[in-house]
């Protein structure tokens, strides 16, 4: 039976995370190369959209990840609140910037897709609009945490906000969907991607997994930095070889 509480101590977690990071990074690279190969070379040219549609292999995975990371962030925030665990709070804070970056990438790849296809930089389509709001949710979370000086209060306040956000995301998505069907002709829509050949789905899944592994690696790196910052008064920190140098 794994003693989870042992791993919730920053002191035990730090070296484990350190060993895991290179593995996640390596797997991420391999998956990304495989995914891009499938997406750019193996998947067939689309009848309607030509080669330009291939940006979907970036756009869809980062969109999925942007939402997935928010849920994971909210999960760790909840654990931190319930069990009063410092490490869980740090994990949530570490995930936020990556989530925000993926959301931004989703918006940017959406724009890059739209321009050659329909000649416009922005479409008020349901998914892009929801992504935009999701970006604000991430930025709000990060702004709140950086505005509060006391670290414990910042973690807990952020956690409450993340939980409120995660409950609201379905509501926001549903309302934006509904709004979109009213105001937008259905002709211009990024959600109506070309019909999925299996190979395309494989490509997107590979890229999504690559993004997931990348997230794991980079978040663990951030958590280690946060641990160093926050636990700097603890004796075990001074024994680390990074610090001794």
């Amino acid at each position: 039976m794994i003693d989870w509480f042992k791993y919730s101590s920053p002191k035990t977690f730090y070296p484990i995370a350190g060993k895991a990071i290179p593995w996640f990074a390596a797997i991420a690279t391999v998956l990304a190369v495989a995914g891009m190969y499938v997406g750019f070379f193996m998947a067939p040219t689309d009848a309607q959209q030509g080669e330009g549609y291939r940006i979907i292999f970036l756009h869809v995975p980062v969109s999925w990840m942007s939402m997935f990371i928010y849920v994971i962030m909210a999960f760790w925030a909840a654990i931190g609140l319930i069990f009063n665990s410092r490490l869980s709070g740090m994990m949530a804070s570490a995930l936020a910037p990556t989530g925000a970056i993926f959301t931004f990438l989703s918006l940017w790849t959406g724009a890059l897709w739209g321009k050659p296809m329909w000649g416009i930089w922005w479409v008020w389509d349901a998914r892009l609009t929801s992504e935009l709001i999701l970006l604000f949710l991430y930025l709000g979370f990060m702004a709140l945490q950086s505005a509060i000086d006391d670290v414990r209060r910042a973690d807990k306040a952020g956690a409450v906000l993340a939980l409120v956000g995660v409950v609201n995301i379905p509501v926001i998505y549903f309302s934006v969907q509904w709004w979109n069907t009213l105001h937008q002709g259905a002709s211009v829509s990024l959600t109506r991607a070309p019909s999925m050949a299996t190979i395309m789905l494989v490509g997107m899944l590979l890229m999504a997994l690559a993004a997931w592994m990348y997230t794991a690696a980079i978040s663990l790196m951030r958590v280690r930095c946060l641990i160093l910052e926050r636990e700097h008064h603890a004796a075990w920190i001074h024994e680390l070889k990074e610090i001794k140098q």
Partner: protein
Amino acid sequence: MLEVINLGCLRGERLLFQDINFRLEPGESLVVTGENGSGKTSLLRMLVGLTPLFSGSIQWKSRPIDQMVGEYRRELLYCGHPLALKDGLTAVENLHSIAALAGETVSLTAVHDALDQCGLNACAPMPVRALSQGQKRRVHLAKLLLLKRSLWVLDEPLTALDVNASRHIVQAIDQHLRSGGIAVLTTHHGLPLAFTPQTIRVGA
């Protein structure tokens, strides 16, 4: 009845104090001393349940306070640094409101009596913003006479009070202890209580 075991406090990233232990029976009091910033207020706030404990436990009538929150709060009276008075209300309205929000119905006569005992009869109908700092403090402390609670937690109760007012407060605390109450206080001044209190020093 109030027992504190191995209490520790973490503020920001500093460990303010640890291994604080004491036990108070009815009629006993505790004075907490220490430098500014040493954690006296934090200790009091942990006692009342506002600040979470870093380590240790607090027990009231032999039960941990987090298992009986409602009951504990009904027996507790906390007078912190901020005065908890609304500037826009009169002294009478403030005390009446404080009692109602604390869950007790008190008559206006009782409010006037309490203000009278603190020598604030003249100030009673005035909005609090028109009172001096010392008068505001006395209104703040008047609630000790108005609400009947067994545990008093007072953070520097004698601040801004003149000699007469200080003496009244000390007498009120004595009376409270004599009738079986418990008091925990911090103070920078000397506190000539009738029955010698326990003392604890926090910080280095």
